């Protein structure tokens, strides 16, 4: 409450413009300051389905907090922490933020139960649609359950509760259904009686570098390592999924997922080395994550690029050969392009390599849906509001943008819900 009282309650709140789902931030902070937590939860609930999640994983420093006027001279309001508090408060007090609305007769299928699917489902349900969420895995939450580790986002409490909240609104959830295999998008529209489909399947297909030695035993994608530990709890002895953790592990990549993989490996007892080809300044991970990783003893090998992975006679990894890099001219992304320094090759002796160099959308839906336009990165082409090249099919989140953040996916889910509403109401 003391922190909340620092808020100036600006006339033209910049924080709201920084928020992809445009939560009325000053209004909820005002309620926190006055101790009306339920009212604060209601205000957030109008715009966000997942406050306890966003409060934890949003890059606030570049969004709401980055825009806060107080940040110009001193420290911005800790908006993320306040949101997290409200999210946790409503869970602990069993406070349900929204009421059920009557059904309007239209049925919408939401593919994927990650942040964008959950948001879209919630928004549509609140507008009166009959919504079913289809999930390929055995748990709901998408990247929130398979990707982000529990130490950053507690699954059993936080994620489960947020999914339950969407369920309570009357959204139906179906697991173990893989769209494109169990049933196609066209069948959902033609035979399963849905009037519109929202594709929120994310970007779950791991990229590899295509360098020598990448298929040695002991080389895994960050997705595999995190899925084993997060979704299947392989680190717990009572769970049966086997887990392999090296003694000395190289994590290739510098994003949030790389930090998650590195910090997970540290927790399993490994000595962990990040290998990233640019410098610290360009690390795509949130500053907070890098800070935590360093605190936990993760070593950063910056301006290093893997050239090949070395293995022993049994086909297991025993090292990773890297070359040192220097930063050259800025490239298309505006970041300075790393250039290899000739003759600077060196070998890092490791017994495990975790590849965390990004993910792409799974090609399955695009391959099984006629007339759905995709771009050269395999992302579905959709406009600002999620309309694809096919009438009645909408898309948003990582499947459109490529791997990005939870909150951007939620923003896309929210916009698409509005567009789906307009589309169906005009019919």
């Amino acid at each position, binding site marked *: 409450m003391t922190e909340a009282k620092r808020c100036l309650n600006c006339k033209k709140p910049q924080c709201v413009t920084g928020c992809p789902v445009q939560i009325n931030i000053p209004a909820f902070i005002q309620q926190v300051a006055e101790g009306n937590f339920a009212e604060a939860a209601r205000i957030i609930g109008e715009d966000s389905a997942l406050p306890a999640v966003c409060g934890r994983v949003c890059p606030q420093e570049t969004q709401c907090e980055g825009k806060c006027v107080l940040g110009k001279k001193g420290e911005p309001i800790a908006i993320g922490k306040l949101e997290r508090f409200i999210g946790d408060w409503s869970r602990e007090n069993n406070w349900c933020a929204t009421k059920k609305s009557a059904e309007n007769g239209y049925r919408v299928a939401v593919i994927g139960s990650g942040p964008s699917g959950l948001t879209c489902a919630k928004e549509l349900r609140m507008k009166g649609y009959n919504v079913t969420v289809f999930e*390929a*895995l*055995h748990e709901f939450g998408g990247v929130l359950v*398979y990707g982000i580790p529990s130490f950053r986002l507690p699954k059993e409490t936080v994620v489960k509760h947020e999914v339950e909240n969407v369920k309570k609104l009357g959204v139906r959830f179906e*697991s*173990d*259904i*893989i769209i494109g*295999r*169990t*049933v196609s998008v066209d069948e959902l529209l033609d035979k399963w009686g849905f009037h519109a489909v929202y594709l929120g399947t994310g970007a*779950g*297909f*791991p990229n*590899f570098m*295509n360098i020598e030695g*990448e*298929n040695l*035993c*002991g080389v*895994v*994608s960050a*997705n*595999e390592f995190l*899925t*084993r530990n997060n*979704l*299947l*709890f392989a*680190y*717990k*002895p*009572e*769970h*049966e*999924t*086997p*887990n*392999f*953790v*090296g*003694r000395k592990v190289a994590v290739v990549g510098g994003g949030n997922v790389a930090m998650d993989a590195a910090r997970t490996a540290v927790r*399993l*007892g490994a000595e962990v080395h990040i290998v990233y080809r640019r410098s610290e300044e360009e690390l795509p991970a949130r500053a907070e994550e890098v800070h935590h990783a360093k605190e936990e003893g993760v070593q950063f090998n910056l301006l290093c690029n893997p050239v090949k992975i070395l293995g*022993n006679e*049994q*086909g*297991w990894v025993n090292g990773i050969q890297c070359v040192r890099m220097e930063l050259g001219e800025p490239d298309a992304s505006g970041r300075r392009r790393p250039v290899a320094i000739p003759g600077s090759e060196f070998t890092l002796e490791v*017994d495990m390599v975790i590849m965390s160099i990004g993910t792409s959308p*799974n*090609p*399955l839906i695009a391959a099984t849906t006629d007339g759905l336009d995709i771009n050269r990165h395999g992302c579905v082409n959709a406009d600002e509001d999620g309309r694809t090249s096919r009438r009645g099919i909408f898309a948003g989140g990582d499947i459109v943008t490529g791997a990005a953040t939870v909150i951007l996916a939620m923003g896309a889910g929210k916009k698409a819900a509005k567009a789906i509403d307009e589309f169906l109401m005009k019919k």
Partner: protein
Amino acid sequence: MYKIIKKEELGLDTYLIEVEAPKIAQAALPGQFVIVKADEKSERIPLTISDTDLFDGTITLVVKTIGYSTRKMLSFRVGESFRDIVGPLGRPSAFIHRPIGELRRARYCFIAGGVGIAPIYPLVKWMYAHGLNCDVIVGARTKSLLFYLEKLRPVSDNLYIATDDGSMGEKGNVNTVLERLVKEEGKRYDEITAIGPMIMMKFVSMKAAELNIPCIVSLNALMVDGTGMCGACRVTVGGQTRFTCVDGPEFNASQIDFDECMRRQAMYDHIEHHKQKEGCECMDAAIQAQVPTSGRVPVREQKSGNATLMRSALDIMQKRP
């Protein structure tokens, strides 16, 4: 939940499980598989769909006990349910997309080794259902490992059987039969599909290359999600990395790096073993056998933590000659 409606012992350690999964039964095509998660704490295990029944809305799976997880699956009784089954996964067999005229002109041979008989059956059945001819060769170490013969016989033109010990059919392996058919009986095959243990597929692939017959195999790589998310099932085909779960499971055999496949398949063998039961005697024996006598003898305390367990597993793997 997916209810088990039939369970039947087919052979040594091999069981048929028929389970209610109407949506999967509806969508399944030959060559596709499912991922089964028996209960809350189980692994996700890939299994080929061996048969479907749209009338009852069921799929049939054949499970052989190879480790803790398969043994656990088989501890489920009729009337009980598996927690999760997702599918059908993977690409269906390529031949089902070919024009029927082309299929009619070609001569297909299906070769199955051991538990590979289960995934071969739907392919042969598809051929039969489309009025096409094909030969089938099945092989196993011994008679008690063979099954499905009564299902295969009516749908194939010729069913050849081979056992290593000669307890049923010809004495020898599937390759001996294949070679005899082609070289001595003058059979002509335009394509072979082989399914079985990795080593068997490797040898059939070599024999097929020798006989100049295109060969397709269905890989049973390790998988976690089975939907293209993890890359655990990576395999090198024609010098390129492919995911067995979404690009396969069937690949052109001549382009596969089988040795890499076998190494990758064994990647978690020791770790899995450790996880099953602490103090497993089998593992103790393995440790005793592997650790050089001059080294430290493992004691109970070293096996208390999971991380330590995994470490010693790694040691063993790397010390293996």
